[in-house]
């Protein structure tokens, strides 16, 4: 089995995540899609680590996880705040940038 297959899988997961960010309105689902993209990237890192035979890729994936965790924490806090004031978790409702 070719390790490149993992990369193809990673690319597809990443693409699915990207589509999800664009098409889904629920902020939490959008967040999950972002997580999916990050995880897809991590899979690539791990695979590259294997291909190259050193652990740098895994360390970077580790950092990615940490950063993703931070992002989830802050992002969910924002969602909660928005939800508290708007009673909605739809990203379309928060379109104040336009005005």
């Amino acid at each position, binding site marked *: 089995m070719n390790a490149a297959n993992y990369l193809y899988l990673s690319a597809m997961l990443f693409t699915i995540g990207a589509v999800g960010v664009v098409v889904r309105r629920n902020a939490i*689902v959008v967040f999950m899609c972002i997580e999916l993209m990050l995880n897809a990237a991590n899979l690539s890192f791990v695979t590259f680590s294997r291909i190259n035979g050193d*652990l740098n890729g895994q360390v970077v994936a580790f950092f990615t*996880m940490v950063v993703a965790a*931070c*992002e989830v924490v802050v992002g969910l806090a924002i969602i909660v705040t928005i939800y508290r004031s708007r009673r909605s978790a739809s990203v379309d409702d928060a379109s104040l940038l336009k005005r």
Partner: protein
Amino acid sequence: MNELALQVGQTAAPEAMLFWILAPLTLAAALGMLLVKKAVHSAILMAFVMVALAIFYIAQGAPFLGIVQIVVYTGAVMMLFLFILMLVGVDSSDSLTETIRGLRPIAITAAVGFGGLLVSLLGRASIGRGAVGIEAANSEGNVEGIAQLLFSTFVWPFEVVSALLITAALGAMVLAHHHRIQERPTQRQLSIDRFRGDSLATAAGLPAPGVFARHNAVDVPALLPDGSPAPASVNASLKARGDVLDSSHFELGTVDTSVEEEK
């Protein structure tokens, strides 16, 4: 395709089997995330994808990451997601009809283009040498190897990331913190308000909810002396949410007023 790059060599057959079984499932779960209406179903599918990825990590010689993936991601992060989902309403289901005109076709076209280009790029890519395999790097143990790197080469990023984590935690607290609009009333103030209010009826405090002796839940109104429910005894927010139980069947059906006092 034989000249191809990323010639990693043949992996062991069990791994191939694992991959070919799990990878389609992962893809299907990921796609499912997009297609299901309920966010909570999405979350469960997401958890599945993460576990699958953790398995892939372990299969690729990254047991540390695989464990972290399960513990931190599937365990903590996904729990957080579910927790928030519960908070904002687990029952709510999204409408999947698109409201921004033209967005969906654009997104799908772009995604197909993106994925196609990425896959075809990967197909052409070359690093100029054969695959090495992770075994040598893991010779002293995967965790030890990563620790070695983290505390030597990557120690500075590591520290920065820890600062980031703390900042994020603080940030989450600040964001989620509820700001008081008014000063919190003191007991003295409350007492004054009670006595100087519209009527002295509330001077002794609001009646406690629940029908004594039969029911003492907070969502059941108390009964007045004539047996009718007392609306003031239930918290306003429960009422607003519509979570107040009907107390009519606890009413005293008939009050026997004919009983004469024993002399």
